[in-house]
C-alpha cells in the first residue's frame, strides 16, 4: 500500500492506493498519528487508489476517525471505488463517515468549518 500526503493549508489530503487490510493498517495509522501530532487535524482521505478493503481496513479507518475526533478534527473520505463503496454500504459505515465523490467536494466540506488546533 502507498500513502501520499499533501498539505493544502486548511486541510491535508491523504491518498491511499493498494489494499487496505490488516497488513497495511499499521503504516496508515502511524502516518495519521504523525499528522495529528503535527497539528494537521482536518483530513481528506482519498481512497481512489484503493482496490481492496476488508474489515481490518475498515476497522483502521474507524480507529483513525476516533483519533481525529479526539483532537476535535475532521476526517472525510472521497473517491471510493465501486467495490470499496459496496463494502461501506454492507457494513453501514457509509452512515458513519462523510463520503464524497471527489476531493474537491470533500475539501469544500472540510473547509467550510475546519477544526482549529489550540
Amino acid at each position, binding site marked *: 500500500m502507498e500513502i501520499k500526503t499533501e498539505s493544502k493549508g486548511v486541510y491535508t489530503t491523504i491518498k491511499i492506493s493498494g489494499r487496505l487490510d490488516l*497488513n497495511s493498517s499499521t503504516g496508515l495509522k502511524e502516518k495519521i498519528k504523525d499528522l495529528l501530532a503535527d497539528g494537521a487535524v482536518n483530513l481528506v482521505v482519498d481512497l481512489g487508489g484503493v482496490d481492496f478493503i476488508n474489515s*481490518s481496513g475498515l*476497522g483502521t479507518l474507524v480507529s483513525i476517525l476516533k483519533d481525529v475526533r479526539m483532537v476535535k478534527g475532521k476526517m472525510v473520505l472521497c473517491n471510493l471505488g465501486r467495490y470499496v463503496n459496496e463494502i461501506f454500504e*454492507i457494513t453501514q*459505515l457509509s452512515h458513519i463517515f462523510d463520503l464524497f465523490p471527489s476531493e474537491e467536494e470533500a475539501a469544500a466540506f472540510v473547509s467550510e468549518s475546519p477544526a482549529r488546533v489550540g
Partner: protein
Amino acid sequence: MSELITLHLPSDLKYLDLVYSVTQSVSQYCDLDERQAHHLQVVVSEGYTNAVIHGNKGHSGRYVVLTFERTSSFLRISVEDEGVVPIVMDTDHTPILPGPMDETGRGLLLISTLSEDFELLSEPSRGNKLNMTFRLDKNLEMI
C-alpha cells in the same frame, strides 16, 4: 464431480499476499466476473485473517488449511484453524453486528453477506472450520 485445491499455510499474516494470489487464480479458473472475484477475495481474506488472529491466537507454529472445492454450480471454500475461536454469534447463528464505532467485528457480517451460505463449526479439541459457498453464476444482483 468436484475439483479440490488445498493449501496448508503457516498461521502468519505475511502469507496474506499468497492467499490473495491463490484466490485470484481460483477466480480466474472459475471464470468469476470482477464483482464475484472481489467478493471472493474479501471473504477468503476475512477467513484467513480470522483464523490467524482469533483461531490460532497469532501462534506462528500453527497452521491454517485453506480449501477451494469447485463443482459445476458452486465454489466451496473452507478455512480451518487449530485453535478455539471466541466468535460470538446470535442464537440463530447470525453474526452479531458491531457497534458503529467498533473497530472489529465486521468480518462475519461481510462473509454472511457476500457468500451464498456460510457456517462456522467449532470443536474445542480440533479447532474451527469456516465453510463458505459461492454460486458460480454470473447474474449477480447488486446488493
